[in-house]
């Protein structure tokens, strides 16, 4: 009994100490598990060996150089950017419109429509890919860039809508009423008040859509046709022939680009209402 009441022992019981160590170790290991492969990939993109063997042969930038002169990769990159930009542009407009409709108006069938809107986020990519492929075959649209763009728009809209709606939900509707009160008609209210205040959300949604489009593999793989290979598809076909350090370099570049886009998107979602609010 006396031992238990000892105030020194009461402060941090042994089992709590152990628990804290285990928890810390668990946290660290999770990060190692997540990021070790990425770090290794980046390191070996600078390795002066032709083979990805795990032995370090000295620092080189040759794989990056090779990357930038590779004509096939250049074409795939151009395809990727073209498809992603068009899909982003269209889905941002539709996504914003749909989130405005969902947040502002009540209409018949809103509930099921709302649920259906987010379906592309939930259903497996492979299911969506197969469905889209069947659809294009059925309506006889030849597979190519167009079908990839349509498919990307189909899933991008949902993500844009989610991000824009989050922004809209915090929107004080009194601001729009104030604009109306000060002689702004519906269009001017949108132009001068709603749209500027929504802008950070719209941009964040667009960036997210762009990133997803740029990175997408499964859906693109199923809906691509001859000559419409995107960067992820190109990488996949290269990997089939064996992993080269060039692929490491390409992956590292894509990783960096995606990372920057996501950071920018998060930053836009957080700030942008006058107060600059760096993460």
């Amino acid at each position, binding site marked *: 009994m006396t031992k238990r009441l000892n105030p020194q022992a009461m402060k941090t019981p042994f089992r709590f100490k152990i628990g804290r160590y285990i928890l810390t170790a668990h946290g660290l290991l999770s990060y190692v598990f997540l990021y070790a492969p990425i770090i290794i990939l980046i390191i070996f993109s600078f390795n002066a060996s032709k083979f990805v063997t795990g032995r370090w042969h000295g620092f080189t930038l040759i794989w990056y150089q090779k990357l930038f002169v590779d004509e096939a990769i250049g074409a795939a990159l151009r395809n990727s950017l073209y498809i992603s930009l068009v899909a982003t542009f269209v889905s941002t407009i539709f996504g914003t419109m749909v989130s405005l409709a969902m947040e502002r108006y009540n209409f018949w069938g809103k509930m099921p429509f709302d649920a259906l809107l987010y379906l592309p986020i939930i259903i497996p990519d492979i299911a969506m890919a197969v469905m889209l492929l069947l659809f294009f075959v059925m309506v006889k649209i030849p597979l190519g860039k167009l079908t990839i763009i349509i498919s990307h728009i189909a899933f991008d809209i949902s993500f844009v809508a989610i991000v824009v709606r989050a922004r809209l939900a915090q929107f004080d509707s009194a601001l729009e*009423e*104030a*604009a109306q*009160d*000060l002689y702004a008609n*519906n269009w*001017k209210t949108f132009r*001068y*008040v709603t749209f500027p205040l929504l802008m950070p959300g719209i941009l964040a949604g667009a960036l997210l859509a762009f990133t997803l489009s740029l990175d997408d593999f499964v859906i693109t793989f199923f809906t691509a046709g001859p000559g419409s290979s995107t960067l992820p598809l190109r990488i996949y076909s290269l990997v089939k022939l064996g992993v080269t350090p060039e692929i490491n370099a390409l992956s590292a570049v894509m990783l960096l680009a995606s990372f920057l886009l996501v950071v920018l998107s998060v930053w836009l979602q957080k700030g942008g*209402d006058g107060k600059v609010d760096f993460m």
Partner: protein
Amino acid sequence: MPDEFAVELINVAKQFDQVVAVDNVSLQIRDGEFFSLLGPSGCGKTTTLRMIGGFEMPTSGNVLIGGEIQGFKPPFQRPVNTVFQSYALFPHMTIFDNVAFGLQMKKVSKSEIKQRVNEMLELVQLSDVGRRKPNQLSGGQQQRIALARALINKPKVLLLDEPLGALDLKLRKAMQLELKALQQRVGITFIYVTHDQEEALTMSDRIAVMNQGKVLHLDTPEEIYEHPANRFVADFIGETNFMEGKVSQLNEERVFVAVDDQVPVPLLPTRDVQLGQVVTVAVRPEKLSVSAEKKREVDIPGTIDEVIYIGTDIRYIVRITEKTTLAVREQNRGGLSAQRFSIGDHIHIGWYARNASLLTE
């Protein structure tokens, strides 16, 4: 003569799904008047204001502004401006652009906008904040900017939806007087929504007390306080003692009400009442006095139940019958006149007959 009124509501009703928010309200608000809509939350006062502003459309009835039927006109076509409860300043614009917004929408020339905005900022004593953003101002400053943004358009009527609600007590009191002074200077009709009865009494020329979508009493602050139309108004505005009883005696000079069938209380014969009718007598605590012997015309013996020291006042709770106690508020003047009683003392409560009201509903 409809053009005598700045705003007129004729049998206006508003229903949200199954809930009646405003129930057949008719009001006539005079030009240049400081008019308050006062009531507890959910009484329909804000909905009434929003129907004048055009943010809600009446289910039935008509809203007239300056004698013109408004119908389904949207807010941007009405000659009124609003000060919102949350101020609703545009966070992405500077203070200057906020105040200039209405004029810009009306396509007023740039030089005129600049001049009028500066004048307006001067009027609300904030000439040097034009380049700041709203979130760089204090609550009180934001409130003034909201006022400036509305007043710069020289509206026929200014609608104010609990504009002082978010300010702390001291600032609120200062702003009340400032707002009233400003209203008299610019001469614009103010329609002011509040749930704070003291605020309404301090500022208004006339008050409409609302409850459950209906206007229960519309009059000057003094009339509403001194002669409330019914029990709700008497209870909502200030503090009131209620005594229930039957009319026991009627003559030309006095009506007598037997409170709890025991204590006869004389009142002025102001209303149509019949012998034996069940009524309520209302009298304010500060109109009562406590003394050791009979002093006033109306005199009721009682015993002190409770003594509460408030600082400025001393409050006695006096039992006059088994069912009824009266609250008495005596000013704490100190010195010789401070006659303090203690719990259990047998005393007399006195007042003047004209200070009590006879309520039938």
